[in-house]
């Protein structure tokens, strides 16, 4: 039930900053224990949920008991497999205790979500998120993040707890006594300041990638060319407030998870419909018409999140994904129709409107690429396997799926970095408690979801891990609070 400041209680057992997957699982778990909960959401009620609005996949260890979706019927995905995936993808740079909890609790968390009304399906071949790895370990949340949050909201007060929701309320600071959390300082409707007392604070407010001032400090003027794929309310004030109180942080603020986003997308909230998935079927040029990275390096599911990061290093943070009619139908298009033309000359001329500075060089690069492709006789291209169709004699080479761009009509998407989250966050221990720089935990301040994400994922995240850190540590925070 949403409330206004006038009818707030004096004191809550749990104060939860945020309203996404992590916050709502924490709220639901605390309600299950009969606790009083106040959820503080910076966004208005119509726009709650931040990046959780766009989520889809959950990863869980299993023993084949679901029997529906494996590459092989005898396939299992153990807790050790999950843990080893985290360690290997992050090149060993992770907190082993916390990663262990995430892996070991993954199935139990899924069952917990299921008892709160969330439904899961398998991931089938042909789905955008399918690859042999996800097919083995991932589960789709039925109807995605909005349905997850709506279902949790609807079921949240069924078990006797008292959960209240205050929207347009941003946690800007917290009052501590020593290391003990006492009160949250909340900015309501952009101006009014409230102080709300609570026994426990759960920081589940996501990351800070929509904090324009902070991002400009980190990236300089280049940040003005970035797209933020998630909500504009994801400004990270609770994280910076915790930093002022001496909380330890982990990860690198300069390292972002960023797919290529359509340059015509809105600044915020373009979400998944604006993600450019075309690079593996063609080439990607920068604004001077030069290729700069291997488009066919690996399966797209493993590489899509890197393209925005590559584009950050290019002049004016601009890229152009170019392909021809043979590539249509092999990937999911974005919201806006691609720029199309019946000849390459016409196409590159059209692209000058979007910032391409050297169309002659672009033409030369595409023709050079066509000459470097292995002979193509109309065979079908399957992006689900590494087919080894590599170019010869050009740098950088394209390792797979190289087919000449020669069949009109020709298409292009202008691309910008689409920042999703940053591999930087608060540091927590295995009980989800936020750690002080001294290494001791704050006794009653917890973090879940993107706010403690980099404790586990510092180099790369694995598909389905985002919902995992949110839900698992949200539930743990709600279960730990008040016992210790």
């Amino acid at each position, binding site marked *: 039930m949403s409330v206004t400041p006038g009818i707030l209680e004096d004191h809550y057992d749990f104060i939860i900053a945020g309203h996404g997957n992590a916050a709502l699982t924490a709220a639901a778990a605390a309600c299950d224990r009969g606790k009083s909960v106040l959820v503080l959401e910076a966004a208005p009620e119509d726009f709650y949920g931040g990046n959780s609005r766009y989520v889809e996949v959950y990863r869980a260890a299993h023993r084949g008991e679901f029997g529906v979706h494996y590459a092989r019927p005898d396939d299992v995905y153990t807790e050790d497999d999950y843990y080893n995936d985290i360690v290997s993808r992050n090149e060993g740079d992770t907190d082993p205790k916390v990663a262990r909890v995430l892996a070991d609790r993954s199935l139990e968390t*899924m069952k917990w979500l299921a008892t709160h009304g969330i439904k899961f399906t398998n991931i089938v071949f042909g789905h955008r998120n399918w690859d042999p790895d996800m097919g083995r370990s991932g589960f789709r949340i039925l109807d995605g*993040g909005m349905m997850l949050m709506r279902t949790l909201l609807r079921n949240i007060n069924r078990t006797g707890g008292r959960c209240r929701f205050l929207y347009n309320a941003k946690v800007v600071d917290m009052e501590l006594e020593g290391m003990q959390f006492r009160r949250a300082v909340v900015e309501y409707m952009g101006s009014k300041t409230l102080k709300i007392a609570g026994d426990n604070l759960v920081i589940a407010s996501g990351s800070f990638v929509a904090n324009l001032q902070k991002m400009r400090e980190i990236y300089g003027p280049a940040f003005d060319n970035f797209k933020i794929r998630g909500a504009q309310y994801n400004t990270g004030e609770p994280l910076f407030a915790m930093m002022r109180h001496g909380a330890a942080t982990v990860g690198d603020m300069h390292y972002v998870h960023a797919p290529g986003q359509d340059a015509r997308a809105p600044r915020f909230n373009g*979400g*998944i*419909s604006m993600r450019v998935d075309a690079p593996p079927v063609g080439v990607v040029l920068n604004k001077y018409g030069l290729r700069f990275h291997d488009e066919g390096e690996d399966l797209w599911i493993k590489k899509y999140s890197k393209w925005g990061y590559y584009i950050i290093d290019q002049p004016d943070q601009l890229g152009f994904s170019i392909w021809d009619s043979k590539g249509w139908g092999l990937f999911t298009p974005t*919201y806006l*129709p691609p720029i199309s033309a019946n000849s390459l000359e016409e196409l590159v001329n059209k692209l000058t409107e979007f910032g391409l500075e050297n169309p002659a060089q672009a033409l030369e690069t595409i023709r050079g690429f066509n000459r470097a492709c292995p002979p193509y006789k109309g065979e079908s291209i399957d992006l689900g396997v590494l087919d080894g169709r590599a170019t010869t004699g050009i740098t950088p080479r394209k390792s797979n799926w190289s087919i000449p761009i020669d069949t009109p009509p020709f298409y292009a998407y202008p691309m910008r970095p689409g920042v999703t989250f940053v591999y930087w966050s608060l540091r927590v221990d295995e009980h989800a408690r936020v750690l002080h720089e001294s290494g001791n935990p704050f006794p009653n301040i917890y973090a879940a979801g993107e706010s403690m994400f980099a404790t586990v994922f510092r180099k790369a995240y694995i598909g389905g891990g985002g919902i995992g850190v949110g839900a698992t540590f949200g*539930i743990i925070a709600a279960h730990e609070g008040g*016992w210790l």
Partner: protein
Amino acid sequence: MSLLKSLAEDREEALRQYMICEGCRLCDNTCPVWPTLSMKPLVSPGEVVLLANLCYDHRDCYYACPYIAPHPFNVDVPQVNRNLRLDVYSALTLRLRETIGKIIFALLFVPIIAMWAIFLPNVFRGGPISFYNLMPKDVILASGFTVLAYLVGFALYIIIKYNSMIGGEYRPKLSALPASIVDWLRHSWFETMHYPGEWWSRTRLVYHLLIFYGFALDLIATILGSIYEDVLGVPSPFPLSNPTVVIGILGGAMLVAGSVIALAARYSSIKVQRFERVGALDVMLAVEVLLVGATGLLTLGYRLAGMAPATYLALLVHLTMIYVLFVTALHSTTLPHVILRPYSLWIYNSVVVPSPARPQTHALVNLPGHKRVRKPIEYFRRPRR
């Protein structure tokens, strides 16, 4: 705004929204629209019309959508499909509110006036109760077959027009007919509604089934009656124990119950997804179904009680209501809906289901919560202290 202009505008809007859906697909488990949409990279204007007729108006996709208002993309696929269906149905049927429509609509009431004028004196005829005392059997048969022929002709016209609208690649195949009939009789796609707590979206299934099978039973009763009379030689009216009467009463009761639930659901559902453009029409049709069922039951009740004038009067009202219902159904959204819904599903089963481009269906993972569990599971075996 003219109807054709509105159709063109709504098509544009649908094409815009489906391009967003193409890139997202979070909700693609909900109904046959989404597997059809994924068959090619760009949606065509004809395909949009097919998609609108495959949309069951569950609204699950609306509740699952991250792009609904106040997001600037402003996606609302159920709304767009409701608009499109109405545009298409209006383009396919005679337009009641257009100028020519008014004249035709007025002409349609001539038979009712004639019927009352000719047969009202018969109401006070004595003797044993027989419907043929009110109206000769030949008149009933002739008018019935005229309406039937008109209906069949109109249905064919609608299908031909619809085929030209959706484009040549979507044609039904005979091999898919059995599965489509099963889907139609079972209301298969209604079952995928799973938005938590929207009790009224489940009532849609209930009242649709009641009205659908109520009509079916009354149709069976009518055919059975003519078999009894003309083949077996049992003269009407039949006693209460006759299957014809039993089935007829059951069908009538289902019509009454279905239309009452439909009206109740309409006035208690949330407003955000209520479709005001056909609101009055929906209410009118529900009331007509209610009156047809109620007057039918009333006629039967008076007959069994042996009250001759009341029976005849109720029968006249009943026949009038049937005629009005058929006329409004023919010239509004109902007949196109009755024809195009199963026809589109047949196309779906013929073209989309066997297509290799369609992704395989997703299976629900068998977890305890899928049957609602009130008591949450214990996340930790023992609370840590």
